[in-house]
């Protein structure tokens, strides 16, 4: 294998390694902050959480509506 090819493979290995490591660290960071912030908002009354679900359903409707529009666009 030529030196150039071997350098390319080195680049690929270190590149993919870094990309995965980076995004995994990002996952860890996201999950950590999600957990920490959840902790803090856990004291909210359950009625608030329910309301949240209702919003969730609205959200779903919106997503579907967007989807339909996109489909029509294409």
């Amino acid at each position: 294998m030529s030196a150039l090819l071997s350098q390319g493979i080195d680049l690929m290995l270190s590149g993919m390694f870094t990309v995965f490591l980076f995004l995994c660290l990002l996952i860890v960071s996201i999950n950590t902050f999600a957990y920490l912030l959840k902790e803090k908002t856990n004291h909210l009354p359950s009625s608030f959480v329910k309301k949240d679900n209702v919003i969730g359903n609205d959200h779903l409707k919106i997503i579907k509506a967007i989807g339909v529009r996109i489909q029509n666009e294409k």
Partner: protein
Amino acid sequence: MNFLDIVSSFGIFSITLPQAIMLIVGLLLLYLAINKKFEPLLLLPIGFGAILTNIPEIGLSLSPIERLIYENKTEDIQILTSMLGLEVAQLSEYLKAASYLELSNINSLSIDIGYKPGILYTFYNVAIGSGVAPLLIFMGVGAMTDFGPLLANPKTLILGAAAQFGIFATVIGALLLDHYGVISFTLKQAAATGIIGGADGPTAIYVSSILAPELLGAIAVAAYSYMALVPLIQPPIMRALTTDKERVIEMVQLREVSQKEKIIFPISLLLIVGLLLPSAAPLLGMLCLGNLMKESLVVERLSEVAQNSLINIVTIFLGLSVGSKLAADKFLTPETLGILLLGIVAFAIGTASGILVAKLMNVLSKNKVNPLIGAAGVSAVPMAARVANKVGLEYNSQNYLLMHAMGPNIAGVIGSAVAAGVMIKFLA
């Protein structure tokens, strides 16, 4: 002076065949942008810039010394070479070996002799040579991006990582072409070509401006064209690599993401990139800045201008500057053919990698993901996410994958910026 002299001095009589071909290429890009709506925000100014660049005589994309050589007036070349203490025959050798400082002096001398920099040359230097334009576009993209879907389901980041395999596989592909003597690529050129697989225009322009500015035109055209072609490129691959059962998988509804999480995300992303891969910090940093301006809710003026006036202004200059790299002698080369070929390979491999890793994740985890969203990991925001949604609906008309696909889609932007950082770190 008689009128025949005037007519014979018209530009058309000094046009070269390659220039004429490039005018047609420019018209083709305009056609794709206007009639086919191929990423018109970029391809319209790129196509227009390509035409301006290849207008004969005037050298709108040339530096003063390049204009002096292009206009090829014996007298002026002699003045220059005598100023430099050279023989005329030595000039081209001298220019090849010239350092940055020497070139800058030579350009000053050429200005003295009457050759101003072409306007597109100026645009290129200010917008791309300095690195500013792609960074400002990234800031605007950050200010327009809602990272919510990604924060709601962070494991889809894995898909955005996987799809970057298209980038590096293409690097190897380019080096193989070089190895077998088909088209010669240096490692830097191969890397810049590979970044097309990132399916992200500003990243591709940023990387190629650093690693291989001579290929920037072809790389940017390939990147934007294939991004526009994502609805044609991806579906066959998506169908080939998934089973009917997989394509109808419905995913768990995304949770609500709090504003605090959205504020913390760009900051933590900034810190991670700063502490891991500083070479990716300009690109990802500006993305984070734009996003923080948006999500912090305290600087709406800045967020608004970043995603409107500023990004629009920069886009015009970026497009024209890319067009300035479509000069006939630099674009009509075997490398361009190789880049166009490798670019589509990059998209295809990236798509496949995303899908296959999604399938692998389903093997390892009980919370199933629909592997179609893996294809969105290449980025090409938001086109690839829409494609995933559309293909999903073909098989399950109640299955809206759009929001789920936005996670890997945006992750793909981060992933390719990280890949870009690695390339710049090891090769620049």
